């Protein structure tokens, strides 16, 4: 019953946020978007080149790819890889972050490792994963996860270092136990840090996923971009790029912002 109530509340708050964003910024967003489109059309009209198609050509390509089902197929596969890598990396990265933030000894020991992995170029991880594990799905997703974990860990560690001792003592007195403490005391304090890690994480992950696909997967948006590159089909490259931007924007507005509004609703 409590759960139902909460779900309803999330829905309401979520809509409220989207509503205010829409009414407040909608006009500016439209103006800004249309000017970008106009500028693009203008430059394309002046250049008159097959290598710089205008919005109409790209739009036509977008529609034909969507109609054939190709677009949904490749975007869907890419999204599945993004989701898998994102959730695994967030989970492991958060766990590491909490451990390092709470245990000083562990932090000192693993700091060097963390710096090593933070500065390891994504491309190196991807190549090594493909070399060691073959051109497989597992290798592809693993490469993305390894790239992402250190960023999450560093961000969450920052939050875990400043956990309130007052509240930890309170939880100890009232015998919350590990799970209750984690859920009601620790994680809510880390929420802003986890949100920051998720935000940065999502944009990082989907960019790396495209590279992974380009280098060693037979499908996905990255692969389509590669094909477009081979054929010098710029319309195709832009159509897929725009499809992806739309999807990411949708996730941002429909998923991330409502979650953020919910975890922040207690703030004054």
């Amino acid at each position, binding site marked *: 019953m409590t759960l139902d109530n909460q779900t309803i509340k999330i829905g309401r708050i979520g809509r409220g946020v989207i509503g205010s964003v829409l009414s407040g910024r909608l006009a500016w967003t439209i103006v800004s978007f249309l000017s970008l489109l106009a500028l693009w059309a203008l430059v394309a009209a002046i250049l008159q080149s097959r290598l710089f198609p205008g919005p109409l050509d790209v739009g036509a390509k977008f529609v034909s790819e969507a109609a054939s089902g190709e677009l949904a197929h490749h975007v869907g596969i890419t999204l599945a890889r993004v989701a898998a890598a994102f959730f695994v990396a967030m989970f492991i990265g958060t766990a590491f972050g909490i451990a390092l933030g709470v245990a000083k000894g562990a932090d000192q020991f693993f700091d060097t490792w963390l710096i090593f992995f933070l500065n390891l170029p994504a491309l190196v991880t991807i190549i090594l994963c493909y070399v060691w594990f073959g051109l497989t799905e597992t290798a592809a997703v693993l490469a993305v996860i390894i790239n992402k974990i250190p960023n999450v860990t560093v961000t969450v560690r920052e939050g875990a270092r400043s956990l309130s001792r007052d509240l930890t003592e309170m939880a100890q007195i*009232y015998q919350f136990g590990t799970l209750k403490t984690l859920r009601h005391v620790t994680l809510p304090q880390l929420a802003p840090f986890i949100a920051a890690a998720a935000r940065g994480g999502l944009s990082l992950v989907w960019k790396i996923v495209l590279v992974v696909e380009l280098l060693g997967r037979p499908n996905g948006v990255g692969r389509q971009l590669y094909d477009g590159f081979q054929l010098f089909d710029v319309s195709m490259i832009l159509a897929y790029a725009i499809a992806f931007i739309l999807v990411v924007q949708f996730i941002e507005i429909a998923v991330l912002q409502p979650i953020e509004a919910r975890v922040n609703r207690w703030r004054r």
Partner: protein
Amino acid sequence: MNEKQSAIRVTVDSKAFPAVADRPEQLVLRGVELEVQEGSFVVLTGPSGCGKSTLLNIVAGLDPDFQGTVEFGEDDAKLSFMFQTPRLLPWRTVEQNIRLVLDDEVAEADGKVAAILNRVGLSEAATAFPERLSLGMQRRAALARAFVVEPDILLMDEPFVSLDDPSADSLRALLIELWNRRPTTVLFVTHDRIEAVMLATRLVRLGGTPASIVQDSEVSLSPPERLDREKVLAWRLRLFENA
């Protein structure tokens, strides 16, 4: 009725705060022996910074770094602690904050949470987040949380400081009401002498550096007398004449 049992027996041979940076090690408590009878309301008083809170934290098990022992009358004695600040979870509503200290079955089973909220006058604020309430109301919620677990031992660390007089008075009245309804062993720290006399059945004073017990007196006021300002002031003079 048989002899009252001791609910808390604490012996602190010594308690020191370790040296930090430019400050040397600091000895806070030495040779403190305190036995609290079941059902008594013991007020621990003394000058600010003398180690009262430190002693309370030792009893609560929050500070294990000391020489000595803490024993309770029952091995699995249930503790409550009302801190100097309310220490409510700001991201949970008042009701959730209270529900959380109970076992799930107990919290769901009867109207326990609603009843205690009603008793402390927070029914209307049940779904509010703590930081939207006044400090006085947050303290009420903390008091409700301390009582809802039906503790064997209730520890309180200056729970009514930084409130205006009327709010502090009404919270003290509420504490007395809750305590009369469900008597429990209380160890209450304060440096406010009037508050000490109003609440205590026994008053223990710490003093010196390092601190030890310098006074231990019974306070035999009846409940109505505790609300009588004249009586309280008279007792304060008597108890603190050589302080």
